[in-house]
């Protein structure tokens, strides 16, 4: 099956334009990252240097992986059911677009801003630590493997949240319910990254590689499964009888 880049781009650009003009989406994209930025920032700037030894045993930076887990979840959960509710889905589904292209465009439009915002927040945090934290604290936090893990896992975790959100959206009748379920479904990723961040789960290279491989497979499967379950008939009529 070939995927048309032009059709994916058409959906992607349309989605980004809609996000920009919807204040509730912009607000949600800003609020979640702020919540997950404040706690580590306060810890870093307030705690005395004597706690740096304890911090060096943790992976505080990874706590912020909750941002790519939560930010795209609400967006993705609105993607299909929102269009359905607005009455804009029917004209799109009468064009030659494939289900895979439609959902990939939607997913990309959730992924790009979420990953972008996450990276900006990380960069801001790292800059604050470098500039304002005590040297011992900065050394305890700014570790190459953690930063690398942060960069690698951000799109993978966001991808998983997005496909779960889209799968929920494609089978929902109510955008609010879909968004709540989407957020709920992203909580396990938040729990896992928090446990790793605070040493509840011991982080090793092997664990990191296994998780990355698992997420890559899940993201690929998520696209395929979501596409397979997108049912034009149900989306248009709310019924499924053949």
């Amino acid at each position, binding site marked *: 099956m070939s995927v048309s880049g032009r059709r994916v781009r058409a959906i992607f650009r349309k989605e980004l334009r809609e996000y920009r003009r919807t204040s509730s989406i912009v607000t949600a994209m800003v609020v979640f990252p702020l919540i997950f930025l404040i706690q580590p920032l306060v810890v870093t700037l307030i705690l005395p240097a004597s706690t740096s030894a304890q911090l060096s045993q943790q992976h505080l930076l990874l706590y912020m992986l909750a941002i790519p887990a939560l930010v795209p979840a609400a967006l993705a959960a609105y993607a299909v059911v929102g269009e359905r509710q607005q009455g804009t889905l029917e004209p799109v589904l009468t064009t030659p677009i494939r289900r895979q292209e439609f959902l990939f465009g939607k997913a990309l439009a959730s992924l790009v801003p979420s990953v972008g915002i996450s990276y900006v927040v990380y960069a801001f945090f790292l800059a604050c630590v470098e500039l304002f934290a005590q040297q011992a604290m900065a050394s305890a936090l700014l570790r190459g493997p953690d930063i690398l893990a942060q960069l690698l896992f951000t799109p993978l975790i966001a991808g998983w949240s997005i496909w779960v959100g889209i799968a929920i959206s494609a089978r929902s009748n109510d955008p609010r319910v879909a968004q709540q379920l989407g957020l709920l479904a992203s909580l396990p990723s938040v729990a896992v990254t928090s446990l790793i961040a605070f040493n509840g789960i011991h982080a090793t290279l092997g664990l990191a590689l296994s998780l990355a491989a698992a997420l890559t497979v899940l993201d690929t499967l998520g696209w395929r499964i979501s596409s397979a379950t997108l049912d034009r008939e149900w989306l248009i009529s709310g*019924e499924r009888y053949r």
Partner: protein
Amino acid sequence: MHGLSKRFGDRVAFQDVSFDIGYGEVFGFLGPNGAGKTTMVRTLGTLLSPTSGSATVAGVPLVPENGMEIRRRIAVMPESSGLYLRLSVAENLECFAGLYEAPDPTDRIDRALRAVNLADRAHDVCGTLSKGLRQRVALARALLSDPEVLFLDEPTSGLDPAVARDVHELIAALGRRGVTIFLTTHRLEEAERLCDRVAILNTTLRTIGRPDELRERLFAKTLTVKTLVPLAEPGDVFAGLPAVDGWRQGDPATYVLAASDAAVAAPAVTRALVEAGADVLSISQSHHSLEDVYLELIDQDEQGSPG
């Protein structure tokens, strides 16, 4: 299409519908609310799968694996415009030009906007447009792909007469360009004015043909004669006249004649009345509109339905 049916569980949307539409034809699809018109458009537009029967759309058999090929050749304008209200007119069209992979999208969008007289509103946000303008944008969107078959579902629903007339002119222009148009409508004068043929659906196909054919099929041609005073012996006057199959008296000085050919009957009736010394006020041929045909068929259905 042949024997096409669509059911939702026990509910029948339409059943055993068969007809053909010719290339370049403007075809009207009429029926009361719930008759299955929109479901038919959605089925032919590949959004719904038929329960049984077969159809060919734009030369391609209507089967799931041909969905994409059919959608390349058709465009559907649903009853609700379905525009992205936060985007401008041009941005809406740009999105759909991409979905259709239209070559030279800028030119396509310009042409579509000019066709619906909206070239100067390209940068207006759709949410700020009136319903009539939104319908026009939706029509422009449907034109982007240069479709072979255009499905228009109630395109003038809720529009004021002036805007509806503009849409009529657009549809007529498309018909002249050779686009096959499948038009569902409640507005019978719209169908009569625009369509080469019409079908009346009330779950099953009730009738199909040119509007004048349907009138002739359903209603006998009649001549109505009005005289100043009642004729003394109307039976003698109207007996044996060519193309007059019978007569009945309406009001005291009004006679309704069944005529197999009005062009032959009318001069003969006039001569007979003059010879009988009648003071003739008028001789007119009765005219039945498509609305009469429609109401007659729907009345028949209601009388035939149980309860």
